[in-house]
């Protein structure tokens, strides 16, 4: 049953170290010293990067398409064969995930120094489990391992958001995130299973082939289900409300999960099933328009945010909107390129923001960033590079190259492409505005460092690494697109110039905003916009409260279960008792059995009274019975 070993079985080595670290940290019942915990976590976090670079080497030297089967199983007529897959898409995403993962874990060694050992163990165990799950999903060659990784990420995100178990908002945010992502998982599971029925096998390529062979209507349904799964996981409209509240988790979690890797899983899903989606144009259109709208909505709401982490959260929503826009217009290569660069500069922004917040006594509001430039020069510089790359300052930053690819792809896609291009440009401007607001505020003079201690080496290395990546990442964009087989469309000159001008105008507007105080107050006043058009409140009213009312009615507000459906037989009997029996005034009966025998007890009282104990009644009963029988006999003779 275990197939012959091939070189691709090395793929198993990529998620293995992280899984091993989780096993040791999470489940081993032995006491681990604090330093040992950090060491294991670090090993578990960085080893996948090495393994992945090994696989990248293999991929670059030509054999970039290989499948490593794990085991096969016969279920009825279908064959269930689990396998890992190495192809350009999984290699690029894998490399990004391992790189960002390593950086964040190194950073969190220093960042989480304050936590107790037990909590630290739990934190690192979950981070490593997340890493293993994400890598499992990325490298999965079949839908079962894929879905296993997909759901495990949701579970880790719940536990990590609710890491600080004592703060109720964090736990509530965790529950909200898990429930909404579970809705998405349900849709995805539906789609995958429908494909499994059609394909009779779980291999993704077989699924896609079977999907293409399906009739038009069924294929659209499956594509919509997969899209639903992607939208939910990547916090796109209409499933976006959980991401801003997920910021309640620690910053490394936000950096790794809720910005770079997990939320982009939706885009990866769409890229993985791109051929199937391409075959249903209307779903592509929905994805493109949805992506563009989410991008615009995300960037617009980000402008009005008062907390830097929520600002970055809305920025992630917006940037992933860009990726889905690119996928929607049929350019998965551009989307994945933007995914790589976005992972780099967004995690940089989060890590830098985290360090600045540390210096301001863990207050992540933008106002608290005043004077950050002087307090934490390196973090400030990193944040500035990140912001530049996010807004896509021309030529100098990685963000520019990948956004340029996306904009070109949108423009070149014809049809609705032109309108979407204009919307994308407008979003680019707004992105620049919200990106540079915190930078400009940080330049203003501010209070001295709350607890002065120069950040350790563990904080500085990731910032430098990611900063360098955000700047030179652009060089990677070309080879990535070529590797993914994307075609570089020839664009008219004016599009490049306009794309370059957009971030600059955004920077200028942002400069104006930081200068005039009344504009700043106007911004602060816009509460409606800050809460993202209060869609969250809307969901609360439409979905959560009615569900809660239903639950309370069914199971009783204080939980003493009337359980109407279960008690139906008993309530019916009680009703019958009231109608038929209560006319006989029966004497008292002890309460212990009342609940159960309530229905039968008055009947018993009637029966008992019939037992009057007088002999004459016995004879009368006998006479009555005989008369009855005689009449019956006489009639039926």
């Amino acid at each position, binding site marked *: 049953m275990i197939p012959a070993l091939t070189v691709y079985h090395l793929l198993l080595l990529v998620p293995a170290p992280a899984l091993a670290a989780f096993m040791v940290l999470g489940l081993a019942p032995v006491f681990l010293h604090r330093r040992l915990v950090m060491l294991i976590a670090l090993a578990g976090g960085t080893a996948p990067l090495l393994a992945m670079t090994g696989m990248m080497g293999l991929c670059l030297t030509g054999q970039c398409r290989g499948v490593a089967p794990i085991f096969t199983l016969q279920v009825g007529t279908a064959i269930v064969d689990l396998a890992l897959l190495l192809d350009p898409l999984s290699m690029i995403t894998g490399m990004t995930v391992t790189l960002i993962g390593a950086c964040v874990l190194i950073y969190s060694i220093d960042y989480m120094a304050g936590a107790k050992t037990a909590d630290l163990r739990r934190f690192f165990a979950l981070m490593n489990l997340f890493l293993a799950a994400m890598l499992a999903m990325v490298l999965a060659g079949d839908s079962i391992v894929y879905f296993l990784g997909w759901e495990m990420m949701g579970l880790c995100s719940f536990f990590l958001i609710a890491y600080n178990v004592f703060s109720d908002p964090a736990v509530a945010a965790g529950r909200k995130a898990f429930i909404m992502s579970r809705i998405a998982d349900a849709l995805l599971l539906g789609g995958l299973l429908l494909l499994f029925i059609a394909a009779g096998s779980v291999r993704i390529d077989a699924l896609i082939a079977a999907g293409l062979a399906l009739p038009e209507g069924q294929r659209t349904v499956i594509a919509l289900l997969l899209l639903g799964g992607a939208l939910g996981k990547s916090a796109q409209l209409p499933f976006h409300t959980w991401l801003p509240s997920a910021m309640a988790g620690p910053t490394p979690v936000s950096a790794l999960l809720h910005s770079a890797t997990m939320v982009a899983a939706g885009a990866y899903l769409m890229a993985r099933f791109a051929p199937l989606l391409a075959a249903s144009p209307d779903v592509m259109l929905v994805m493109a328009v949805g992506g563009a709208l989410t991008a615009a909505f995300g960037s617009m709401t980000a402008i009005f945010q008062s907390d830097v982490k929520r600002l970055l959260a809305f920025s992630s929503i917006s940037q992933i909107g860009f990726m889905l826009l690119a996928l929607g217009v049929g350019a998965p290569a551009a989307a994945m390129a933007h995914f790589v660069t976005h992972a780099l500069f967004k995690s940089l922004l989060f890590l830098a923001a985290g360090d600045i917040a540390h210096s301001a006594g863990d207050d992540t509001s933008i106002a608290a960033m005043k004077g950050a430039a002087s307090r934490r020069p390196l973090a400030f510089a990193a944040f500035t590079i990140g912001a530049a790359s996010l807004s896509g300052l021309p030529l100098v930053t990685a963000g520019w190259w990948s956004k340029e690819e996306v904009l070109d792809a949108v423009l070149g896609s014809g049809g609705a492409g032109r309108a979407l291009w204009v919307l994308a440009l407008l979003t680019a401007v707004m992105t620049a505005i919200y990106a540079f607001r915190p930078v400009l505020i940080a330049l203003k003079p501010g209070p001295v460092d709350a607890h002065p201690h120069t950040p350790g080496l563990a904080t500085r290395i990731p910032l430098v690494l990611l900063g360098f990546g955000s700047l030179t990442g652009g060089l990677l964009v070309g080879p990535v697109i070529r590797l993914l087989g994307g075609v570089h469309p020839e664009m008219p000159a004016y599009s490049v110039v306009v794309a370059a001008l957009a971030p600059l105008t955004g920077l200028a507007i942002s400069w104006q905003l930081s200068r005039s105080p009344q504009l700043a107050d106007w911004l602060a006043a816009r509460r409606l916009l800050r809460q993202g058009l209060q869609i969250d409140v809307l969901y609360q009213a439409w979905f959560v409260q009615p569900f809660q009312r239903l639950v309370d009615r069914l199971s009783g507000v204080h939980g003493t279960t009337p359980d109407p459906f279960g008690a139906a037989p008993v309530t019916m009997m009680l009703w019958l008792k009231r109608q038929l029996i209560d006319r006989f005034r029966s004497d008292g009966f002890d309460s212990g059995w009342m609940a159960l025998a309530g229905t039968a007890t008055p009947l018993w009282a009637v029966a008992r009274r019939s037992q009057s104990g007088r002999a004459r009644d016995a004879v*009368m009963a006998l*006479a*009555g019975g*005989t*008369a009855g029988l*005689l*009449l019956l*006999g*006489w009639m039926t*003779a």
Partner: protein
Amino acid sequence: MTSAALWPGAIALLAALMVVTRDSIVHALMYLVAMLLALAAVFFALGAGFAGALQILIYAGAIVAVFVFVVMTVDSTPEALAREKARLRRGWRGPALLVALLLLPLFGGVGIAVGNADPVPVKAIGALLFGPWAIAVELASFLLLAALLTARHLARWEEKP
């Protein structure tokens, strides 16, 4: 032959009614004797001489005699009689209805077409009782034995159970 039996039958019916409705037990007992004798007359009319004789000898003689001994113990003071009459007044409608309900089908359903045959000689009854029915007579003796044992046990004077 059956028409000759009708008159004593009517007397028996009347006597039975009186038995049940009298206040004093002695009067009731007297009417019971009258009923039994009337029935004996019916039996003779029907040619069942043996049955009639038995009726007079054992039923009217022995059983009623036992009754008389027991009746002696009853105090028939005037207020006891009044109480008895009052009780009867109150409670007779229910039982009367039940009995009427019971007799309705009986009267409706009963119908004997067969005529009358010559009287049955006593010898035939003896042959029957000590022929095929011998076991029945033995069993009857055990019935009486059981009654004897019970009566003796009940009538014991000293309290020792």
